[in-house]
């Protein structure tokens, strides 16, 4: 949403009706009585600060989290200090030691597509890397989910010289020896995706944080753990690693309404409060441009 055509913005400035006046446009459907403002303490109470670096002061995710949550200033954010939900805490606590520290979040302080100054992995988990990690470290290659504990167990089994790291030789031997799936499955997947690379290289690209060419135990756990829910279960392939709600299926990856179909109707409110706006109220009056997006 960062890129927006100046022409569109100029046109919007001259034609968009802001929400207060829009209520007068909704002549076809009677406007239901508007519910009270969302803030329970009344319109005059200041809203709590949104969960973001509003002033843009922070250069890193860690200093933002530390200033916001590290109440006793010991450089470790406990669950109690954090106070938001367990799933988000688990995703931040990448090494799974029960506290959020600077080393947990260093991987995320970066622009996309550029290596970090300290060489750590980007923190991104492309679906290909997720699938390769899952198929390489699951107990059962057909399973749709795996746990953090399974990953750690498989790691220990692969690390035959017990040096805390799995290198390409250990990995290749172990995967061949397990015979959990027919040989070549991962290679064929890479071929289908047009990737000129090996399974090891494609996986290491996303997992090998310190760029030593090997996968360390903390790196593997740090890759899997944020994908898992609060119970440590990672539903492989689901958006954000979480199991879909019943009936949701892969709706979030559906194609959306195509040209010619009726636009799905909705009723939403402006962020500052005020009248709800119903899309269908503009029918026969104006065309409506919808710009979907978020700040990040």
């Amino acid at each position: 949403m960062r890129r927006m055509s100046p022409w569109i913005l100029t046109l919007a400035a001259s034609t968009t009706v802001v929400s207060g006046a829009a209520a007068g446009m909704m002549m076809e459907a009677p406007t239901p009585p508007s519910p009270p403002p969302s803030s329970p303490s009344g319109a005059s109470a200041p809203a709590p600060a949104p969960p973001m670096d509003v002033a843009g002061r922070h250069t890193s995710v860690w200093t933002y989290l530390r200033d916001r949550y590290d109440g006793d200033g010991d450089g470790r954010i406990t669950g109690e200090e954090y106070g938001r939900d367990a799933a988000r805490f688990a995703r931040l606590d990448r090494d799974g030691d029960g506290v959020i520290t600077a080393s947990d979040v260093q991987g995320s302080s970066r622009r996309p597509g550029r290596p970090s100054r300290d060489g750590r992995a980007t923190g991104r988990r492309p679906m290909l890397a997720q699938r390769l990690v899952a198929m390489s470290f699951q107990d059962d290659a057909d399973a749709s989910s795996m746990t953090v504990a399974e990953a750690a167990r498989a790691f220990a089994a692969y690390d035959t010289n017990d040096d805390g790291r799995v290198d390409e030789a250990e990995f290749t031997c172990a995967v061949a020896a397990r015979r959990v799936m027919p040989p070549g499955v991962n290679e064929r997947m890479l071929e289908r995706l047009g990737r000129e690379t090996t399974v090891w290289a494609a996986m290491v690209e996303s997992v090998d944080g310190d760029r030593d060419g090997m996968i360390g135990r903390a790196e593997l756990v740090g890759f899997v753990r944020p994908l898992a829910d609060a119970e440590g279960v990672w539903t492989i392939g689901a958006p954000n690693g979480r199991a879909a709600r019943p009936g949701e299926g892969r709706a979030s990856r559906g194609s959306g309404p195509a040209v010619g179909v009726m636009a799905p109707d909705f009723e939403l409110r402006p962020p500052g409060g005020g009248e709800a706006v119903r899309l269908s109220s503009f029918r026969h009056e104006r065309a409506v441009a919808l710009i979907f997006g978020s700040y990040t």
Partner: protein
Amino acid sequence: MQFFVVYIREAHPLDGTSPLGGGGMPIVEDPITLEERNGVAEVCMTRLALEPMAALVDGVDDAVGRAYAAHPDRLYLVGRDGRIVYQGGPGPGGFKPEELAAAIRAERVRSAGSDGRPPAPDRQGHSPH
């Protein structure tokens, strides 16, 4: 022509599976409540200078974002008949404001070429004729 920014779930919150933040990228936690998302949306509209457009915020069930397959970002144009006139490709690669601009120009030409606006019904819903 009416423009709405529909503010949906964060694409890269720092506590998500594809975190970004710092080094010039906005530092945002994944909002839990609608109130939190409203707060982030307001900052975003200001920071990205989108205020010529009105903003609406999707509920935390992400229902509208999912109905339009809009995550992480996407552009649509709905015609006066309520039907989709332009469906942009899924973002970020498919998010092309110049395509939306072209669709808007075409829609305005189409509307100007029609018989003119039909008389708007009065508040009781009866046509003036």
